[in-house]
């Protein structure tokens, strides 16, 4: 192992860390291919694939026709035949046309063939609100995939995790949906190691230690929750903040241990509350920490409405204030 001093790092934003992760894997594995709409010469609408076509050639970083089912469907064909496609959905809200290919094929092929065929594919997609994007662009539909047997779902909240999780996702032998929080793309920079490293799938992170309440979030909501947690600390309420990082499979032990300790949980997500992944977290708590609960589990989530036009998006998205409110309600239950 190298010591910290020997590891060269760069200050990167989350989107740059994604590019770095892709570059690392394109370099290391000839089977890794990047494909999608505008990922080639244009470098992606967020520059997530900037420079990669020039560096690795347009036959490894491929612009495709504008057809999400086609992108995923051909990626499946590539994946069962020796390649590791990393397909980009330009926005997660445009994954819906590909839903059938993911649901009936990508996620089932290993099962259906008793592992004779498998689909080591990553579907990358920017998601979430807060950047004043047009309709559909801001959808957070992770639970359409956590409910889909055979898919893993991963969401980084910071540049370090973004690179490490992306590499782990590409190395994973099975299909992974890799969601990238747009609002966090350029929000801040981290020291990101230049070399290859992985952040293990299925493991969340405890960002702050606390006693009174467990706050659970992912993606951009981690930063939002962080602000709430800081306010609470100032008021003497000690929160344990968990960044789930992987939404399927959930890090059961992390959630269980924390809620067993605090007896209270506030879950934060952007997606509509009904049917959201918050309910899966609730289910883990119900099973693992029932006897420890001192208040109902609370959710601060998107409403059961379509993601609104951007003039109202800040009303829709969970805010530190709404989270504070929920924490206080939980503590005073």
């Amino acid at each position, binding site marked *: 192992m190298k010591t910290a001093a020997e590891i060269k790092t760069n200050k990167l934003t989350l989107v740059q860390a994604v590019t770095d992760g892709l570059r690392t894997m394109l370099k290391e594995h000839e089977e890794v291919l990047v494909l999608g*709409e505008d990922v080639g010469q*244009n470098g992606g*609408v967020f520059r997530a694939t900037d420079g990669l076509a020039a560096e690795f050639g347009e036959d490894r970083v491929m*612009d*495709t*026709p504008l*057809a999400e089912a086609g992108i995923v469907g051909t990626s499946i064909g590539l994946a069962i035949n020796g390649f590791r496609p990393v397909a980009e959905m330009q926005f997660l809200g445009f994954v819906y046309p590909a839903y059938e290919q993911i649901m009936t094929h990508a996620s089932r092929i290993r099962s259906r063939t008793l592992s004779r065929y498998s689909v080591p594919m990553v579907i990358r997609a920017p998601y979430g609100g807060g950047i004043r994007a*047009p309709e559909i662009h801001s959808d957070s539909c992770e639970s359409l995939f956590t409910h889909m047997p055979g898919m893993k779902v991963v969401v980084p909240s910071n540049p370090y995790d973004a690179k490490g999780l992306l590499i782990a996702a590409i190395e994973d032998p099975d299909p992974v949906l890799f969601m990238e929080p747009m609002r966090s793309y350029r929000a801040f920079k981290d020291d990101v190691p230049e070399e290859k490293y992985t952040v293990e799938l299925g493991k969340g992170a405890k960002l702050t230690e606390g006693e009174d309440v467990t706050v659970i979030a992912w993606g951009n909501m981690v930063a939002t929750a962080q602000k709430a947690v800081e306010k609470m600390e100032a008021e003497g309420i000690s929160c344990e903040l968990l960044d789930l990082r992987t939404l399927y499979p959930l890090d059961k032990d992390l959630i269980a241990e924390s809620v067993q300790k605090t007896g209270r949980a506030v879950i934060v997500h952007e997606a509509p509350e009904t049917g959201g992944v918050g309910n899966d977290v609730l289910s883990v708590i119900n099973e693992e920490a029932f006897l420890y609960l001192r208040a109902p589990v609370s959710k601060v989530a998107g*409403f059961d409405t379509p993601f609104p036009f951007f*003039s109202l998006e800040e009303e829709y998205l969970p805010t530190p204030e709404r989270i504070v409110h929920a924490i206080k309600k939980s503590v005073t239950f």
Partner: protein
Amino acid sequence: MEKEFPIRQVLDGEGNITDDSYDLSEELVKDLYGKMLRARTLDKKSVNLQRQGRIGTYAPFEGQEASQVGSASALGEGDWMFPTYRDHGATLTFGHSVTTIMLYWKGRVEGCVPPEGKNIFPPAVPIATQLPHATGAAMAEKRKGTDRVSIAYFGDGATSEGDFHEGLNFASVFKAPVVFFNQNNGYAISVPIEKQMNSKTIAQKSLAYDMDGVRVDGNDVLAVYFETKKAVEKARRGEGPTLIEAVTWRYGAHTTADDPTKYRDQQVSEEKRNKIDPLLRLERYMEKQGFFDEQWKQDVTAQCDREIEQAVEEMEAFPDADINDMFGHVFKEPVWTIEKQREDYLTFKRGETV
């Protein structure tokens, strides 16, 4: 297939008539010019508003005015229009309100609501999804026994989506009175048409459905107008759908968030401005015909400017977005989940405890 589907043109870039089978009245020409100028004024203003941060991301269409205005002018009252995010020249011409169009880009849901009596569907953001809607709405008119038609707008990139195929297939099977109006600007964001499809034309895709297909110079408002009119009339007669490919060019960026220099030489756009511009060619034609008049142009320009400026004012004076609109229109009859979320949230906003 370029031979089987020649690009139909009435007026070339220099303003010369290349097909004299149409009756071109001064009135028609001036009307189309005025509409194109109005569309261009809206478009340029919107780009500026975005630069100044007064609206959000915007999708410009400068260069495509002939396609949009020519086709929309061929429609009649009561017809149905299914536009994309870029077809404001068409919706405007068809009777949409400038203020509404601008509100859309200001992140306001009100931007989706057409003037009373106008059948203008909200812009389709997910590519190609509006084609089956146009087919369905047209089937509905046919069932009602009217002679109304629908028109769907979409780009070259949209032809790759499954919904393009399904929309056209249904229309052909049900002989629905639809015009599928494609604006082929050669790019889907950065992806050039050669990477989008192996075919040289989009019109030829009609052959898959035994549907009529036609290619038209999309910068020639007269050609677009007459060809669309033919398709519309054919549809009204109950003779089914048509696929029109209007070959055009968008001068500017895909949207204001896009940097076209990443994928194409913007010099080309500048050259095209002089060579194939829809407005310029009409001016040249009018000049040649002797009915172009600078004063008239200035008047029309001033009128367009006034109208657009006034719409900007209206847009900016528009009351703030109402949070209740977000909760209030998911279902016609309220459901408890959303009602509870609304109440909790409004209570929270008022600073009370829930």
